[in-house]
């Protein structure tokens, strides 16, 4: 069984987000780039599955669409435990562009399970996975919170509107995953960091046949919230009245 994990690169959660060039671009100064947290969890789960004694998982490949400066992020995925990596050499434009690049590359490859993060910490679009599955004409399962291999069976849990479900799925399929699939992202071990250097990272040319469907025209900073109105500890009653009379929420 071969697993493919799609990873994207996003600013670290604690990074300050500012824009330059007439608010048309992200100011990249001082930003630390990390593996998108959802993708990191999906990779963590793939590694856990591979490490299980008697596992049927033969290999974990990570794939990323980005320019050369994103290679440290890919190396980290290899240090965590992926076996090999593919970088599609293109500047991401929108989710459809990224999904199309991925689809063109993956179409000729053979994977049983493709994992993508349900969301991403940059454009928060929740889009690439579903678009990719559609382009590959592959079954997709969204909002996955667990992925288990039990004998010949592949079982996944997912959130649906109004509950949770356990499904049995036939490969190949694509799952967009969220928290629960793994709890904490894998911290790379010394051995993994040392080995990451020598693991294969293949760079593939992007296709110029795809065009984005959307364009990020400009950005603005969200208006600051008004100052907090604080009540003394013993005055919960006043707060309740403010919520009732002022905010009219209760």
């Amino acid at each position, binding site marked *: 069984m071969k697993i493919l994990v799609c990873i994207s690169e996003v600013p670290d959660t604690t990074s300050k987000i500012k824009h330059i060039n007439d608010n048309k671009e992200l100011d990249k100064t001082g930003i630390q780039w990390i593996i998108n947290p959802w993708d990191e969890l999906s990779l963590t789960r793939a590694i856990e599955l591979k490490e299980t004694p008697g596992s049927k998982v033969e290999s974990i490949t990570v794939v990323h669409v980005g320019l050369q400066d994103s290679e*440290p992020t890919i*190396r*980290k995925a290899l*240090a965590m435990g992926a076996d090999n990596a593919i970088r599609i050499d293109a500047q991401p434009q929108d989710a459809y562009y990224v999904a199309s690049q991925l689809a063109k590359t993956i179409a000729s490859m053979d994977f049983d399970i493709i994992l993508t993060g349900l969301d991403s910490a940059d454009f928060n679009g929740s889009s690439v996975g579903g678009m990719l599955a559609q382009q590959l004409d592959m079954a997709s399962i969204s909002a996955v919170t667990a992925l288990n291999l039990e004998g010949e069976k592949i079982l996944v849990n997912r959130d649906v509107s109004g509950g949770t479900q356990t499904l049995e799925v036939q490969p190949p399929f694509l799952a967009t995953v969220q928290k629960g699939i793994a709890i*904490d992202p894998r*911290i*790379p*071990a*010394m*051995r993994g*960091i*040392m080995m*990451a*250097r020598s693991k294969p990272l293949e760079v593939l040319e992007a296709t110029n046949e795809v065009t984005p469907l959307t364009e990020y025209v400009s950005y603005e900073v969200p208006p600051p919230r008004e100052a907090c109105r604080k009540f003394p500890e013993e005055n919960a009653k006043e707060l309740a009245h403010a919520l009732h009379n002022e905010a009219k929420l209760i």
Partner: protein
Amino acid sequence: MNFELTEEQKMIRQAAKDFAERELLHDVNERDAKSEFAGDRVKKLAELGFLGMMTDPKYDGGGMDTISYVLAMEEISKIDASVSVLMSVCNSLVNWGLETYGTEEQKEKYLKPLARGEKIGAFLLSEPEAGSDATRQRTTAIDKGNHYLVNGTKNWITNANCASTYLVMAQTHAEKGHKGINTLIVDKDTPGITLGPHEDKMGMRSSDTHSVMFSDVKVPKENRIGEEGFGFKFAMQTLDGGRIGIAAQALGIAAGAFERSLNYAKERKAFGTEIGNHQAIAFKLSDMAVKIENARNLCLKAAWLKDQKQPYGYMSAMAKQYCADIAMEITTEAVQIHGGYGYVKEYHVERLMREAKLTQIYEGTSEIQKIVISRALLK
């Protein structure tokens, strides 16, 4: 010259930071208050390979350089020096000593499980009456033909309880003075070894510190490291490298206190503005930043010399003395910046201040470092 870290070095620093923030931060104050050892977390740290990170992969270690080790030590120490001291003893004293001076059989038997992090090591040099003056070893290792018989007491031993492998300095030929000292590899569960109670310390309270008593403990001859009488030299050589670890620890304590102070100065308001806007605080922060930058450069230089196989004892003494002393200054200032909050446990800086004090004392006091530095100058 090149100040740029490699991709691996950055990754190791991040891994150490992630580990400390995820695994250690949430109960560090609680463990400190209760003097509780973080055994489960140490196990995870070991599984990640941090305890044998510098050992050659040939002996199952991580094969990382000393610079990576300094970066990792700094990050862990920002949050929990009780854990980083364990890491320092394992890496720079026990593993390095065994790898550099042990026989192939000793490495096979003792170093490999240590480097894999399956076992923990301890370094038993200090005695009730032999601290800075380590030549005055009262612990004896009498030559009984095919084994040594060890008797005596060791003090302030880090990892005493959690370790399986002890490196013990003991006097075999008292008449030869420090040239009669041997270093022996001793299994902790050898009959005749007992531990004193967990030390109730000022800081690093959750590190595993005990005195260790030896009473007619038999140690096989093949467990001696190096030639007969090599023990003192072994200890001194090992401590030269150990100083880099403790210097990085002190740096981490200082940097942790600084980062907390900087955040606090940006948030806390007094006289109508964030306190960082008051020059009294701003200048303190500026002074701290300069000292930390200096300290970090000294640590990295000592580590770089070691990695380049150049003499580093002089530089590691400088790094240890400077980092420990500025850690004390910076943590004290950090408490001052935090005001009343700095004096209560929740804000971490009072703990960091207590931890800083120890870095001026162990693995060679600041005064001992000055002796090393000045002797090298006046030679």
